[in-house]
């Protein structure tokens, strides 16, 4: 642009107490003309109430089928510096932990090769390096891998797995979410970079599910304990003395109604506990997950497209902590094999299950049905009884 274009609408978003993304774009624009054109194009979108990016764009780095989101402006003559404005998804360190110098390293590279704008982080959890041209992708990528960073997944590839902070800084983590996630991410590098199936894995350390795995992941691994809640009676008494209404705020809110407070002593009928986390959240000093720890595996969450949103549902009620990684790999390989045979293009695992039926799916991956898998047994009588001669009839369904 010859003269500095005015951005009257966006300028109004510089004021107010919440940090302003417009200020951020302007800061970047001071040293980078692409950020300036982004601002200009965004102003145009604000004026016209309409997006100005063209559909799709398929660009990448050599040898990878994902990790780059292609973007082209539909008004390149007005904003030539964002005519190409592709994004690199960089796999974040698990748990989003950084040392300051690592951030400087990434963003020095990005200053040389891109717009100087970023998302910390994108919806998938990746570091989003926002906006560069096709010819800069490969050099940026090479510098990133030299510095020890790699691209994450996109499109039809396995998406970058993510984990809650877990044992790094949370007393409720029932397994090492970050360790498992990091291991799994490295194990599936091929599937992350060369699209084979479009799955998401997410790891939460307890049923608080801070990474929303039950809502977003094809495979949700959520920390769980099996034995009794660890209870510190002295600490309970301290909470009571400090004014916490244990009856009202803890016992009455327990969904299993398995807690009793007699004014002095809290007792929990542990076999009735549904592991919801409420009482632990309210009294972190007094109550802690039990000692027999592991995870519950749930399967199938997705957003509404195509036939409606799905939450993950229970597949394996409890996997001991030490067996999580092996169980996951075995499970994924069995599901993948079935998906390979019967899955449709772009089909998420929930859709596959809906199409073939959960029972047939369980047959295929070799898991026995257990009542923990359902909220209730079916209430319709349309049962696909199998022939009784041999047990193998369900196998060809799909």
């Amino acid at each position, binding site marked *: 642009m010859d003269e500095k274009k005015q951005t009257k*609408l966006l300028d109004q978003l510089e004021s*107010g*107490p*919440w*940090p302003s*993304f417009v200020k*951020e774009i302007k*800061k970047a624009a001071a040293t980078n003309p692409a950020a300036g054109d982004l601002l200009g194009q965004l102003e145009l*979108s*604000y004026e016209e*109430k*309409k*997006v100005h*990016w063209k*559909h799709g764009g398929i660009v990448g780095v*050599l040898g*990878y089928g994902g990790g780059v989101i292609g*973007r082209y402006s539909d008004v390149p003559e007005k904003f030539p510096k964002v005519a190409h404005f592709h994004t690199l998804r960089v796999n974040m360190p*698990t*748990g989003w*932990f*950084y*040392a*300051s*110098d690592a*951030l*400087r*390293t990434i*963003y020095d590279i990005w200053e040389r090769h891109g717009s*100087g704008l*970023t*998302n*910390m982080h994108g*919806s998938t959890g990746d570091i989003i390096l926002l*906006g560069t041209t096709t010819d800069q992708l490969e050099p940026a990528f*090479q510098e990133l*891998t030299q*510095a*020890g960073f*790699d691209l994450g997944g996109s499109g039809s590839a396995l998406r970058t797995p993510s984990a809650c*902070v877990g*044992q790094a800084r*949370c007393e409720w*983590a029932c397994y090492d979410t970050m360790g498992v996630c990091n291991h799994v991410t490295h194990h599936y*590098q091929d599937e992350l*970079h060369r699209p084979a199936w479009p799955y998401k894995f997410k790891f939460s350390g307890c049923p608080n*599910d*801070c990474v*929303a795995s039950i*809502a977003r992941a094809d495979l949700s691994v959520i920390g769980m304990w099996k034995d009794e809640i660890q209870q510190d009676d002295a600490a309970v008494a301290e909470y009571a003395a400090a004014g916490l209404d244990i009856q009202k705020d803890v016992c009455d809110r327990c969904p299993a109604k398995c807690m009793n407070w007699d004014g002095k002593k809290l007792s929990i009928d542990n076999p009735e506990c549904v592991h*919801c*986390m409420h009482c632990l959240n*309210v009294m*972190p*000093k007094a109550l802690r997950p039990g000692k027999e720890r592991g995870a519950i595996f749930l399967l199938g969450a997705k*957003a*509404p497209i195509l*036939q*409606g949103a799905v*939450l993950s549902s229970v597949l394996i009620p409890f996997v001991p902590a030490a067996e999580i990684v092996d169980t996951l790999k075995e499970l994924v390989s069995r599901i993948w094999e079935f998906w390979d045979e019967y899955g449709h293009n772009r089909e998420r695992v929930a859709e596959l299950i809906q199409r073939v039926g959960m029972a047939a799916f369980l047959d295929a991956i070799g898991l026995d049905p257990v009542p923990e898998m359902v909220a209730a047994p079916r209430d319709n009588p349309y049962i696909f009884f199998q022939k009784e001669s041999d047990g193998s009839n369900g196998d060809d369904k799909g």
Partner: protein
Amino acid sequence: MVPMETTKVEGQPRKRITDIGPPNFEKFLHPLIKKNYGQWKYHESLGPGRLCHVAESGDRIYTVRAGSPRLLSIHTIRYFADLADKYCGGYLRFTSRNNVEFLLDDPARIEPLKKELEQAGFPVGGTNNAISNIVHTQGWVHCHSAATDASGIVKSVMDELHYHFTHQELPGKIRIALACCLNMCGAVHCSDIAILGIHRQPPVVRHDLVPKVCEVPTLIASCPTGAIRPATVDGKPSVEVIEQQCMFCGNCFTVCPALPMANAEFDGVSIWVGGKVSNARSAPRFSKLAIPYLPNNPPRWPEVVKAVVNIVEVYAKNARKFERMGEWIDRIGWPKFFKLTGIEFTRYHIDDFRFAPLTFARSTHIRF
């Protein structure tokens, strides 16, 4: 400060490195965190945006959390890096809701850091029963299918809800999320309040482009209602959209650029409430429709801001301690939710897709 090997590349052809995966997080952990990994005993709140985690060993790590706009310039990232060096040996992290967290071992530095962050315009808060940062998507900044912008609405809403970020006085947590189209990148569909960009016009079929850019069978299969059919237009193969069958999901555009959806006049925003992800007390659940349509009104979307603030305020006044939005509505019932919030109940609130009957009131339980 933690040293990291940096690249020295001048001139030399380098070996191409691929498939190395993310760096191991261990080298980015504060020494206290590394030492006490898996050995945390409990935590306590030191006020909004400040946490103290105590290990079995007695060690304490302090967290200071600040809000960010998610869309950041490298200059701000460097500022965060400098702050981390100044206050906590260079150790910081980001949360799943786009907050930045500084990890300190010296409690005396918490308040100075907080002050410095606030002076630089980054509010400290977002913990416990505060409204944390709004998870959001790209919007007009970087996505082709956006029916609305993301950053502008988030900024405008958070400007108004700022108080609830820096204070933790609400009955329970409120998680707000925004997605700019029905693809819903991010867990918006399980949020206490979800702001969702929507189209309200069927796609325009660009018959000149269909044969060039479309896999027609994929396009037809992409429509959840079967509204897209093969058709011959001017003697050439193309598709037609049965408009009465279209519910404007935009999936056809996702698979085929020749069916654009964006429409400045009709696109807008819908508001959904009562979803949650956590298992605490009640089970995770989807958000339900509160307001089917509000106009796109940049730069500050006053209608959307007003609607969200209203829902927050009515909730804050009426919910009991620990009740999340959905749990509060469970207790009072939907009729009362609409009454208290003054939101109009319309035909659009009644589901008419698959499984719709499951959402009907199938009992005589009723409140007058």
